[in-house]
């Protein structure tokens, strides 16, 4: 027994990064499931959840007031018909992307290091999407008629207008949400079973038991599981690209200078992954610290993600460059004015801040020292999150507020409700995340076991 363990440890030391040395089936299972099954909730969790829950309540108030009075409580106007609503929608959707990328694409690419982060990255995706969908729903003047965007037989003899990107959004986002949910849940089943079996209290065992859907870990179960999981991965992969492409169409198909650009789809997808990974880091670094999971989410995980941020960051920077270039190269007076207005207009400060956040800050990641220091990494991630939010602000607002006719130019200032709604959704996101951490294994137990497993198999060969 202890021979096996020793050899396992040796072997594991040979393959660093994925799993800290010194872990066995038991230790992995204990460590992860303990977070969920332990009777007492850590004070930090209670405080964190309490705060985010208060924010959720604020969100609910804002939504109630919004429904009662109208979208006029926001800062939007004519010409700036979209404000925080669409900015935040795009931002949240973007954040979701990392989850799907990690779980789907990295799975297909057999990137083992993904295993320890994919679970909560997927959860993050799910929660980000549920925050995102609030906005397109509530930004409508008459949200209770949102179902008119769906094609269904009705007494009016009417269909939605399929030429409109907003209709494409409905399908893109709902598909995305659904697939993400399935992917995440299917992945959870074996672990739910584990929890069911390790739980002490009957009530807990029943609950996890129902959720585990009778998983017994038999060969046939595993076989079906693998097939389903791969299929879903295959389904999810195109979504990583499609969703934000469609979202970018909301702007690209319009005539507004600053929106009407062919580079938008790739540039948006890159931006999404960029911000997504930034968010994963923002969450992963504190969590591993609090729950002492350094063993599972290791340096090399952080480093890999930092590299991806650096790469996608450059794609985004290329996007900015091309925007400016085409504006100049097109010789189109409106395009020229648009970029000039971004650089020197009333919102110039935001434009330059966004460049500082998205173009300069990540360059720090060239340095190994930064990549290996969780604290610095965390700081960079936060900055990138802010930068990506600013990017959306610049795209949405500065393009709209000065378009073609100087007579109709205006300004946009968010009201307290814009803020309360935004902060409220952040609260919702965190609240959901806290619940997830408390009641579900945030790291895939069986996949981590497999890590141990592989080591031993190799030894027996």
């Amino acid at each position, binding site marked *: 027994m202890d021979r096996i363990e020793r050899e396992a440890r040796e072997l594991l030391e040979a393959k660093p990064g994925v799993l800290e040395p010194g872990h066995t089936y038991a230790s992995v299972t204990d460590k992860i499931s303990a977070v969920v099954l332990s009777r007492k909730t850590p004070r930090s969790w209670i405080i964190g959840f309490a705060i985010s829950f208060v924010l959720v309540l604020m969100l609910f108030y804002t939504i109630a007031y919004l*429904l009662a009075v109208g979208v006029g409580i926001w800062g939007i106007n004519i010409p700036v018909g979209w404000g925080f609503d669409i900015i935040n929608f795009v931002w949240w959707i973007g954040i979701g992307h990392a989850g799907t990328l990690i779980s789907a694409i990295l799975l297909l690419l057999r990137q083992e290091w993904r295993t320890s982060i994919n679970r909560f990255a997927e959860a993050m995706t799910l929660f980000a999407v549920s925050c995102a969908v609030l906005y397109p729903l509530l930004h409508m003047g008459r949200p209770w008629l949102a179902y008119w965007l769906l094609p269904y037989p009705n007494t009016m003899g009417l269909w939605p207008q399929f030429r409109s990107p*907003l209709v494409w959004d409905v399908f893109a986002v709902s598909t995305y949400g659904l697939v993400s949910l399935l992917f995440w849940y299917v992945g959870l089943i074996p672990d739910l079973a584990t929890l069911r079996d390790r739980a002490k209290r009957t009530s807990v065992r029943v609950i996890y038991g129902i959720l585990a859907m009778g998983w017994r870990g038999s060969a046939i179960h595993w076989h079906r599981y693998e097939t389903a999981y791969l299929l879903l991965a295959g389904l999810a992969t195109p979504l990583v690209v499609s969703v934000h492409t469609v979202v970018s169409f909301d702007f690209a198909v319009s005539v507004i200078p600053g929106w009407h650009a062919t580079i938008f789809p790739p540039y948006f997808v890159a931006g999404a992954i960029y911000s997504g990974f930034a968010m994963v880091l923002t969450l992963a670094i504190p969590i591993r610290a609090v729950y002492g999971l350094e063993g599972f989410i290791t340096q090399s995980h952080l480093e890999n993600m930092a590299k991806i941020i650096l790469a996608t960051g450059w794609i985004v920077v290329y996007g900015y460059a091309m925007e400016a270039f085409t504006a100049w190269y097109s010789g189109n007076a409106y395009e020229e004015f648009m970029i000039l207005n971004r650089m020197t207009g009333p919102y110039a400060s935001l434009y330059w801040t966004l460049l500082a956040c998205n173009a300069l800050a990540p360059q720090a990641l060239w340095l190994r020292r930064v990549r290996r220091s969780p604290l610095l990494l965390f700081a960079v991630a936060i900055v990138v999150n802010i930068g990506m939010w600013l990017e959306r602000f610049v795209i949405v607002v500065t393009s709209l507020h000065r378009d073609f006719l100087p007579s109709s130019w205006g300004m946009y200032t968010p009201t307290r409700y814009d803020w309360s709604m935004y902060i409220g959704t952040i609260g919702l996101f965190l609240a959901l995340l806290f619940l997830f951490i408390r009641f579900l294994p945030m790291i895939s137990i069986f996949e981590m076991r497999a890590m141990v497993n592989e080591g031993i198999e190799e030894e027996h060969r």
Partner: protein
Amino acid sequence: MTPREDGFEPGIDASPWDDEPSRRRFLKLMGASIALAGMSGCTRQPLEKIVPYVRAPEDLVPGKPLFFASSRVLGGTALGVLVESHMGRPTKIEGNPEHPSSLGSTDALAQASILDLYDPDRSQVVTQAGQIATWPALLGALSAALAEENASRGAGIRILTETITSPSLAARIRALLAKYPEARWHSWEPFARESAAAGARMAHGEPLNTVYRLDRADVILALDSDFLHAGAGSVRYARDFASRRRPGAEGRGMNRLYSIESAYTLTGAAADHRLAVRASEMDACALRLASELDVAAVRGRAGPSLGPERDRWMRALAGDLRRAGANGLVVAGDDAPAAVHALAHAINGALGAAGGTMYLTDPLEAGAADRAGSLGALLEDVDAGKVRLLVILGGNPVYSAPERLDFASRIAKVKVRVHLSLHADETSRLCHWHIPEAHWLESWGDARAHDGTISMIQPLIAPLYNGRSAHEVISAMLGEPARTTHDVVRAHWTGGAPAAKDGKPSAGAEEAWLRSVHDGFVAGSALPPREARLREALEIPVPQEPRDSGAIEVVFRPDPSTWDGRFANNAWLQELPRPFTKITWDGAALMAPATAAALGLEAGDVARIAHEGRSIEAPVWILPGQAQGSITVHRGQGRTLAGRVGNGVGFRVSPILPAGPGSHITGVEVTRTGARHEFAATQLHHDIAGGHARERGIVREGTLDDFRKSPESIADRGHAPPADLTLYPAWKNEGHAWGMSIDLGSCTGCNACMVACQAENNIPVVGKEEVARGREMHWIRVDTYFTGAPEADSVAHQPVPCMHCETAPCEVVCPVNATVHGPEGLNEMVYNRCVGTRYCSNNCPYKVRRFNFFRYADLETPSLRLLHNPDVTVRTRGVMEKCTYCVQRISAARIQAKKDGRRIRDGEVTTACEAACPSRAIVFGDLNDPASRVSRMKASPLDYGLLEELNTRPRTTYLARVRNPNPEIRGA
């Protein structure tokens, strides 16, 4: 701004956390919208009642409007109108095509007066000392007061009216004066054209009225005059002027307009050459011109030099006028000093204009001869204790009279004070008795048009708030309280004995009366031209030396929206962007950039303007084109008892108003108070320096010479994309293809179209805060662009309705098909399908779409519900709306045409904006009909599409503006 709870102040404050009433409103709406949300699942209709007539009135077909002729009276002069009535509710005012002052057009104020009728703040009951009283009680009090005067033959009776041209009312007042020989009749009107009368007296020895024939004038000089926009006959004058502004049109060719003025007026903006001169130098200017033209009456008096630059300008002008001779014309402004009017008469005389481009008639005004000093004289009598009964018929002198006269406290000595007015206003509060006045849409009457034509006023609806007319009050004073206004007016025009004594008028007279009521005026009743000899020499107090040009002057002008304050409670007008500044719900001290710099002021600073120990505080607005050192302020704001809309809007200027005649003061002290003021303007970028308006070809202008050389060169920038450049198949409009053409050459920017549209299409007002947030709802707006920084030598107005693009960007992005393309080329906005994503507005390059961010429409106030046009849906919260080309009118015409089995005729459908436009700048019609007016306009080489390079293919296009500058003047 105004109380929140009244349904009249629209919009909801977006900060309920610190605003108690709106929190209550929030809860109310909460319930409402939850009910709404509940219903939306399956929309089940509540049961409704049908309430038919018991006895149906004749010729009233339910669902079909009726039109009645009447007249709007402002400053004593009448504008003939047709009033649209739905099931007995007047809903819209149109011009009377036969009426000489209207020719079918109206001005913004006339369009808005329909809202005054339904104003829920109008006073609704007779009050005594603020307490509710009754009409009989008043009659008792009046007869008692009059009885005391019998002995003194009425020595203690004074009647104070506004300017009155009404023959019937004047006759009744004279009858009263005959009954009480010692009684006196005074008049007070803030803008009464007194200086014009005085000027005429200077020149001709009597206060003659001047009528202009602008269609005959080749060269026109506006001396401090805004004849295109304000004052008697302005609607007609705009039409006549515009008729000579279309290059290439057959006829006598383009006229040339010069303007000398202290502040930009719409007339100045329309001028080919404009000279900004301080109001205090206007008489010197006029004298200068007269001497240049060697006018006999002022021979030997050159007047001071205005500086080389201006002198050259004046010489060029003089030359032009001399060449024009009898076809030249000088128009002196209503507010210009008497001397300027006198000189204008002299110059016109010298040119031989009389009988050609202008003619003189007897004065329009009846009675109260010397109106200028009238109020002063009254107050002297009051001080002398001679006045015991003061009856004020209309007007609001306590608010509008110069504070220097101290009207408010001096009339306290009068024993019985009676005030008749629409609102219980500042004057009512200081009177023992207040009588609610009947709106002109509620009562009978008559008045004279600018050319003296007798115009009839007939009621469209019984008084909503049992108001009384001036006639009724006079009748009561004559001891005939039973006589209705109808009796009196009819008796006057049928010449029959009072109907009370049942003397039947002759059949012929009766018929003539009925015809004039039907037509809205008495045919051929215009005052005949008068021969008048000019004085040999004019005694005009014009200094030989130029006045101290360092001194700052303040010029008082009527507010473009509230006039003298009487329209202060009219939300449409308060929210109407003022010409040039585009500010709403506000007043401002307008000054040139240089003046502001010299005074150390910035836009938004609150300045204290002091003069002879009195001062006002006014927020500063910097307006290019003002004369150096000249500050313009508008009377008619800063009301305290106007009503919920008008109270506390803007600032009051009467403290520094001159007591005597004249409309400006000099030598004022201007200091910064340090306070700041937030304006709510609908246009923030007038593009003075930016030059986008021209760079982007938004406004296209040229000179007559350019046009003669190559007509295309002005409008065509070669940016219009080829016709086949679209992914979608082109629309083929088999039936009609509606389109609109707007002639920038004749548009004066008077805003009549905006109010007409608001009235026709149930467009709500949103209040100052919402406008400040950029949420005004006007379907058609008038953009204003200045060019020639910093002092703006030129201004262009551009009305912008929906363009009804053939390849409309809004249509492709709407997710629910709420905005689609119709078979006749209309871009259709469907409110009931709209879910309010605002994507269409974002994607509209012209930003002509308007969104109901809150529920702006007022559905609570009962009187305002009567105002709605039943043919147009009242929009709810959360839906987009925009110009429809007045589709309700198109539908009506189409159905009629189909029933008659014919096509819709050209001109059968007129949009509200087109119908109102005084200068006929807007033309709507069928593009499939090559003979239609709009087709012919679009065929012009001056035709261009706004932002046409975007390939939106707008159905609304513009005619580039062609100016006719004098080559002798540089910088033209």
